[in-house]
Every structure is written in structure tokens, then in C-alpha cells.
């Protein structure tokens, strides 16, 4: 019997020889260094002037300068872009939460024949990536604006060329962002609200409460954990989104941070100092978000991985 051999250490834990342990640690350190070094390298180089960078790409800066940040902030219009990014991220997250949870409540607690086809179509949508539809989305939004603008012009309300509801408009960006986040949000919300006892809803119904009232005062407070999960996984994806806003918006006043950073790789590509500063500005908020919400994000990622 080999039982006594295993009594000496905690169960579920492997015993590795010293050499194996060394190898395992070596592997982990290598991976961790691979993950972090490029980022550290980027941050260090953002404090070098472009001239110093071209002479010394790998070492520490000889003298640290903050000039790149000041320059990049100005040239990139980052004070506008960061505001826009916050607006798009917060707006889309709140919009997604409200629409997804209210629909999820209806799907799981109000019986209807429409639930199967509509909920089913949302589930199929989890598989679809909106990015692959960017060309038709661009055509749809810009052509709808033309159509509506023309219509309003014939009514004599305004000039057609100045009409922007879907294309080059904050509303349009929110709409597309919310639409692409809804399938996952609705799936997570519905699965969660299903587990809330139906008796709660029925009791409130007998007391005469309407469905919206029940949603706001009973269901929503009870679904805060899943709302948190949906929000936590939505925020980084909205903040980092590039492909869609790239085709939805052409005016700088409406652009988000990723678009501003991308501009630095075109016309300003040779000015490495400012480009690095712009990249650091671009990843800073998300690194901060990650350090604050690491635990929740880790949980959210594993909950949100439900494609299919």
C-alpha cells in the first residue's frame, strides 16, 4: 500500500524534484518576462528623445524627459479623444446593461411564444463578429443619413449635407457598440435571471406591481453580480475597439483614443518619442482598470467565454 507516502503533504499538490521545480520556474519566468518586457521597454522608451532612441534602443534613458508626453498630448488632441473614449465606453456599457437585462428579464420571466426565435437569434449573434460586417455597416449608416437628410430637406427642416444621425455621430457609435455587445449580455443575463425564483415575480404581481416596476425594484438589484460581470468584460472591449469606430467616424472631434494612437503610426511614424508616449497614453487607462478590477475581470473572462 502506498497510502502512507502521501500523508506527508497536502492533497492535490504535486511533489516535484528540485530540478523539475527549477525547470518549471524557469518556464514561468520566461513567459512572464516575455509578457511584460515589451511593455516595460515601451514605457522606458517613451521617456527618451527620438534622437536618443535611434542611438540607444534597448538601454535605459540617459536623461529622462517628459517632453514626448506633452507633445503627443497636444498633437494627438488627446484631451478630446480621451473624453470621447470615456463617453463611448460608459455610454455603451450602461446601454448594454439596461437593454440586455430588461430583455433577459422578459425572456426568462414573461412567457411568450416569441422568446424561442428571438432569444435564439441573439444566441447565434454571439458567434458573429461585427467587425466582419464593417463594410455593410458603413454603407447602411452613411446611406441612411443621406436618405433621412434628404427627406428632412424636402420638408424644409434642414440641409441634407449637415444631417448626421448614424454616420459621424456619437449616437451611431453607441448604437453599433451596444448592438455588438447585446448577444453576450443577453445570454449571460438570461441564464442568471432564470435562477431567480419565479415566486418572487408572482408575489409582486399579486401585490399589483407592473413588470417594469418588478424589473427595477426586484430583478435589477438581484442581478447586480451578473451586471458587474457584463460591465467588466464590456469596458475593455469598448475602450479598445478600433475596427468599427474607424469606419463610423471621420471627424477628429468624435474619434476615440485608439484612432488617435493609430494616427501616430502614419504621418508621425518617424517621431518615435511622441509615438511611444502616445502608445503609453493609450494603454495607461486599461492598465489602471486592470490593477483595480483584476479579480472581477478574471472571473468575468471565464464567465463570458460562452461562444457557441
Amino acid at each position, binding site marked *: 500500500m502506498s497510502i502512507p507516502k502521501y500523508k506527508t503533504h497536502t492533497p492535490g499538490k504535486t511533489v516535484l524534484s528540485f530540478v523539475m521545480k527549477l525547470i518549471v520556474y524557469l518556464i514561468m519566468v520566461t513567459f512572464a518576462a516575455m509578457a511584460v518586457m515589451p511593455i516595460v521597454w515601451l514605457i522606458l522608451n517613451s521617456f527618451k528623445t527620438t534622437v536618443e532612441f535611434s542611438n540607444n534602443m534597448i538601454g535605459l534613458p540617459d536623461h529622462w524627459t517628459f517632453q514626448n508626453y506633452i507633445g503627443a498630448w497636444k498633437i494627438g488632441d488627446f484631451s478630446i479623444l480621451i473624453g470621447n473614449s470615456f463617453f463611448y465606453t460608459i455610454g455603451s456599457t450602461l446601454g448594454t446593461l439596461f437593454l440586455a437585462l*430588461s430583455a433577459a428579464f422578459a425572456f426568462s420571466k414573461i412567457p411568450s411564444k416569441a422568446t424561442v426565435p428571438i432569444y435564439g437569434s441573439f444566441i447565434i449573434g454571439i458567434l458573429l463578429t461585427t467587425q466582419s460586417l464593417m463594410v*455593410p455597416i458603413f454603407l447602411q449608416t452613411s446611406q441612411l443619413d443621406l436618405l433621412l437628410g434628404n427627406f428632412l430637406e424636402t420638408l424644409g427642416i434642414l440641409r441634407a449635407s449637415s444631417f448626421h444621425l448614424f454616420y459621424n455621430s456619437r449616437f451611431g457609435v453607441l448604437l453599433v457598440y451596444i448592438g455588438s455587445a447585446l448577444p453576450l449580455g443577453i445570454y449571460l443575463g438570461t441564464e442568471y435571471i432564470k435562477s431567480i425564483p419565479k415566486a418572487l415575480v408572482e408575489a409582486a404581481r399579486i401585490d399589483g406591481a407592473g413588470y417594469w416596476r418588478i424589473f427595477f425594484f426586484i430583478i435589477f438589484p438581484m442581478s447586480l453580480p451578473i451586471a458587474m460581470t457584463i460591465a467588466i468584460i464590456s469596458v475593455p472591449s469598448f475602450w479598445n475597439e*478600433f475596427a468599427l469606430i474607424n469606419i463610423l467616424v471621420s471627424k477628429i472631434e468624435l474619434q476615440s483614443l485608439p484612432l488617435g494612437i493609430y494616427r501616430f503610426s502614419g504621418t508621425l511614424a518617424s517621431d518615435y518619442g511622441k509615438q511611444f508616449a502616445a502608445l503609453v497614453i493609450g494603454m495607461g487607462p486599461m492598465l489602471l482598470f486592470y490593477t483595480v478590477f483584476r479579480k472581477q475581470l478574471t472571473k468575468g473572462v471565464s464567465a463570458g467565454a460562452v461562444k*457557441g
Partner: protein
Amino acid sequence: MVNNNHVGIEEHRAYWSMVLPAFSIYLFVMAFPIVISIILSLSDYNGGRMFGGEAWRIIGFGQYRKLVSDPYFWLALKNNIYIVLISVFGQLPLGFFIAYIIYRKMVRCGGFWQGVLYVPAIIPVIVIGILWGIVFSPYGPLAELMNSIYAHGFEDRLNSIFAGNYNMVITDGLVHRILDICGTSAKEIFSNPLVELKEFLMGYSPSETTVMKNDLVNLLAPTWNADFLNKRDIAMLPILFVTLWCWTGTYLILFLANMQKIDPQILEAAQIDGASEGQIVSRIILPSLSGVIMNAAILCISGSLNAFALIQSMTAGGPARITQVLSIYMYESAFMGAPDYPYANAISLFIVMFSFILIVLTRKIENKWGGKE
């Protein structure tokens, strides 16, 4: 009866007031674009006003015929398949491997490693693309690092050649040995390497050995050549590497979270029965994670078919379109140069269909082999 009916109407109203806003946005963002995409891919629409402008009409499947005979389309598809493969057979096993190390507590502070390895996944893809684009550029830090390694190697060999030669006696043999270690670089600089290099070396006084060696290193040390990044297939390597770099952490988290859900008593029992590490993986961990692994594979496939932002910011499909993928090709057809909307829409629809086919295939595989739990 009347009362019941009243309740029914109220239920009905509440239901639709809750579902309709979400559903109409969803239709607007996903369903209509697909319909538009189907119609336009069959049409001769070429920009301008879609309604009330220049007339356009449905002309049939010409765009799809063009797609099939377009070498750039096949190249983009091949590159896309590379990305799908590295995602499914690179990210997933690597993520699983690291998750397993942390799960089995082979290293301490599991949370720390997990936290560090997830960092790349949280950074904006645009930042990642530009950052790695600079790293891999012909005059970037990778080239500089390689050059400095080459230069050090060259210097070491120079030192061994000059070892013991304190008086700097320049013989033909010595010059030959130097030329041997330079490879091709000497021929590019000197038209008659043997004579000219000898003359060059004669120009230094014996006290200037260090200066001479430095000059030789600067002049003749072989340089890192990033030309290979202009070749088909090989040019995709940096992109594949970065794909692996930035998303492996996601699957690590996913697998680890699901491993931790496994009842620890099962593991204990297995260990008491003397199960080996390999048996634990193949008999306990893999079977209980099979569903999660399949979901991860599906996630991988639909994500990697749309690696637009990363490649657009890293290479933009260049040089000369050899790193192009489907989404970049679609973008270029629609927005660069003369817009070819029907063609772009055909590609768009192809991406949607292709990802559906791959996902259905994955499901089929799961049903066949995953159901043996």
C-alpha cells in the same frame, strides 16, 4: 375571463417594451448589414447614393467568380488560416499548459503569474500592433539587438585572431583569417579585399589595437538582415508570434478557472491510487474540460478570422500585401483607392460564412469525440 385577458395584454405590452429596443438595435447592427451585404455582393453598386442616385441593379454571382480566381484572395485566406491554426493549436495548448502548472501548484503565487500573463490581453490591440511593428521593423530594436550580438561574436573572434600578436605584425595569413570571419561584408566594402584590408590594417600603429578592433567591428561585423520578412509565409511569423503573445493569457484564465471547479477529492483519490501526472491530465482534467476547450476553440476561430486591428496597425497587410488577411482585404477593397463595394461585400459575406462553417465543424468534432466523458 375578462380579467385574464387584461393580464395577457399587459404581459404582452411589458414583454415587447422590454425586448423590442434590444432586438431592433440587434437587427440594425447585425441582421440588416448581412442582408445588405448579400444584396450588394450580387449588384453593380459602386458608391454614390444608394437610394435615388445613379441606378444600380442585381447582376448575379460575378463577384464570387472573381473571388475564386483572385490570387490575393487566396493569399489572404491562407494567411487567415495560419492565424486560425496558431490560435487553436498554439494559444489553447500553451494556455492549458500554463494553467495546469498553476493549478497543480507547481509554482508558488499562482495568482501573480496569472495576473502577469494576462496583461497583454488587456492592452488596446492598436497599441500592441504598433509596438510590435516597431520591434520587428528592419531598423528596430530587434535588428539592433541582433546586430549587437553579431558584433560581440565578431569581436570575440577578432580577439582570438589577434591573441598573442602584441606587435601587430600584419601578415597575409592574418588578413586571410580576418576575411574568413567577415563572410560577405568584406567583398561589399573592398573591391580587392586582401590587398585593401592589409593596407587598411597597416594604417594603425601597434599602440592602437583597441581602436583598430573597434573600427573593424564597425566596418566588417555581419549585420542582421530582416529581408526574410519580405518573403511569403515567413512574413506572417511576427504576426503569428504576436497573436500568441497577446491572447494566450485569456485561455490561461479560462482553463484555470474551470480546472479549479473540479472536485479536489477526485484528484486526491487518483493520487492515492497512484495515478501518474500524465494519467491525471488525460483521465481527469481533459475530460472534465472538454466542453470548455471546445468553447475556447470556437472563441478562437471567430476571433482570429477578424484580427483586423492587430494586422492593420502592425503591417497593414504589407509589404506588398503578403501579410494580408481577409478582413484587411475587405477593408482595402471598400475604403482604399477606388471603392469596390460589391467585391468588399462578397468578402464580408465569405468571412461570415467561413467562420460559421468552421464553428459548425468544431461542434461536429465535439459531438464525435467530446461526448465520452
